[in-house]
């Protein structure tokens, strides 16, 4: 046992450390998807593109200011706002027009995915572009070093999650969102402005993905194809956690983040992804409500 620890301890430690960072970021992205599903009852396939746009806007901010810290702060404010704006626009001119019909929404957001990706390619170009981290330091553990900025990312994601939680329980918007999630018709009769709530939730979901994009871009650069992977991972998280459940989303992000870390380190990364997707399919089939959520109609 002790020899196993000696041999694999550092591996396990790294898997947990890396898995935790992944989990925080994933929770932030997946929470956006989950809120949109919970309140609006739709699946947004373009969610990953909102993440990508956050990263891309972050690069523009960095390029504009030519200073890592100011660029980062600018992006932190601007990218979620801009992406939120795009989300509101999409809600108003696409989703509302198709009455949030679940399957039509999927087709429409697939279209949106292609449009956003192609426009980014035209404007931003095909290359992966790096953004300097606002704060950079390296932490040396006895066995290996680790990026200090990654820990900052985890911390800031945690703040983001906390922010959403406060928003949900303390604000009027949160109250309206919960009311709409419980029962749309009743919410309407009680005077909840559901149209505005829908737009706000879609913007919030997109904004959270964009925020994650801004945080992550100094770790991994921005490119126009980076949205698909987080989309699939968010799906996995949201489903295992239970569609629409905030608590479930966060718990599932940790399960997936850490188990992916461990399987990848000790076994094969492709195998880890295969098992994760298969696992999700099985969860949906055998326990459709996920860990905490309600059953999906």
């Amino acid at each position, binding site marked *: 046992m002790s020899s196993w620890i000696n041999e694999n301890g550092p591996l396990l430690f790294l898997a947990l450390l890396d898995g935790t960072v992944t989990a925080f970021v994933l929770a932030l992205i997946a929470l956006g998807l989950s809120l949109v599903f919970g309140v609006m009852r739709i699946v947004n396939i373009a969610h990953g593109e909102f993440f990508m746009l956050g990263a891309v806007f972050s690069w523009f901010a960095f390029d504009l200011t030519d200073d890592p810290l100011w660029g980062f702060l600018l992006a932190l404010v601007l990218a979620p706002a801009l992406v939120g704006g795009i989300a509101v626009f999409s809600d108003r001119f696409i989703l509302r027009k198709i009455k949030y019909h679940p399957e039509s929404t999927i087709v429409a957001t697939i279209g949106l995915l292609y449009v956003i*990706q192609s426009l980014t390619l035209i404007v931003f170009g095909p290359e992966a572009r790096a953004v300097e981290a606002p704060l950079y330091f390296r932490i040396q553990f006895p066995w290996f070093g680790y990026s200090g900025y990654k820990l900052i990312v985890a911390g800031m994601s945690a703040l983001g999650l906390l922010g959403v939680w406060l928003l949900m329980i303390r604000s009027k918007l949160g109250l309206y969102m919960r009311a709409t999630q419980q029962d749309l018709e009743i919410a309407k009769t009680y005077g909840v402005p559901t149209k505005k709530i829908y737009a706000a939730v879609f913007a919030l979901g997109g904004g959270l993905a964009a925020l994650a994009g801004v945080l992550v871009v100094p770790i991994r650069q921005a490119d126009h194809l980076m949205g698909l992977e987080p989309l699939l991972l968010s799906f996995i998280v949201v489903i295992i956690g239970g569609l629409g459940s905030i608590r479930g989303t966060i718990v599932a992000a940790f399960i997936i983040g850490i188990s992916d870390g461990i399987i990848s380190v000790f076994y094969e990364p492709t195998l880890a992804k295969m098992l994760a997707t298969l696992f999700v399919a099985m969860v949906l089939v055998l326990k459709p409500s996920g860990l905490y959520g309600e059953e999906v109609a």
Partner: protein
Amino acid sequence: MRKKSLIYSLLFQGGILLLLFILQFILPTYHHSSVSKIMVLASYAVAYNFLLGYTGLMSLGHAMFFAAGMYAAGLGIYYLELSALGALLFGAAFTLVISLLFGLFALRTSGVSFLIVTLMFGQTFYLSILYFNEFTFGQDGFSLAKHLGKLVIFNKEYLYSNPDVRYNFALILLTAYLLISTLIMFSPVGRILIAIRENESRTQLLGYNVYYYKLFALVLSGTFSGIAGAMHALLFTYVGTTFAEIHHSISPILWTLLGGAGTVIGPLFGTGIMYYLVDIISGITSNYQLVVGAVLILMIIWFPMGIMGTLRQKWMKWLP
């Protein structure tokens, strides 16, 4: 009334197929080849439509079936030295099993869950092709050109990739799919599938075990997609993961919706139009995906019934 509709629609489809048959003598080389490809892809879309258009189940993982048929046929030829017909049958049998297993699980869910389950199974299948790359040749895929035998008609040899062989085999496949779809849609079973699409719980309360009929539709749709994939491998001699990617699951949705979900012939029009649209656009701008995306959005907002769906509503009420 029904009989008249059946005769009308068979005549209509027969006319289009006859037109396609004649076109091969007229079309210039490039379009001759494009139409062959469109017919194989349209067969895939017809199979897809069987599930989406007639049973009301939207799958985001159909590339799994197409690729399963394609890889079974291709690997069968490569490793087992199967004949072309053998490979086709092997592809069909393999997808039959895959879609049956898949259906048994996935059909326990419905609506958005079903969609995500199909997406996840599709993704798992794609990843497993990559994972077993020693056997499947991974992302690069492989060419069958050297491993396929030749077709003999009246003692004359032809390659399967011969343009005329390709065209006519694609035409046969399409004809078979259209005919089978039409006959099923005019049978009592077709009526049940449409009822499931319209109102699943009501259908159950008419005494039908909805699960079995959905399973039937899924297995038929999956197997036909697989046969289309196997045919694609034979006629176009390349097998690769691009046919298992999520984009290849999205394509038949686009083709079906554009042509008209729930119309037998619609997917053919949808496939043809999209194929040429992409082809023309990619000659003009470098960004054909932008157009695909825009078409998807505009169509779902303004034109949700698609071409044949709209025609049926306005004029061709008999259209299946």
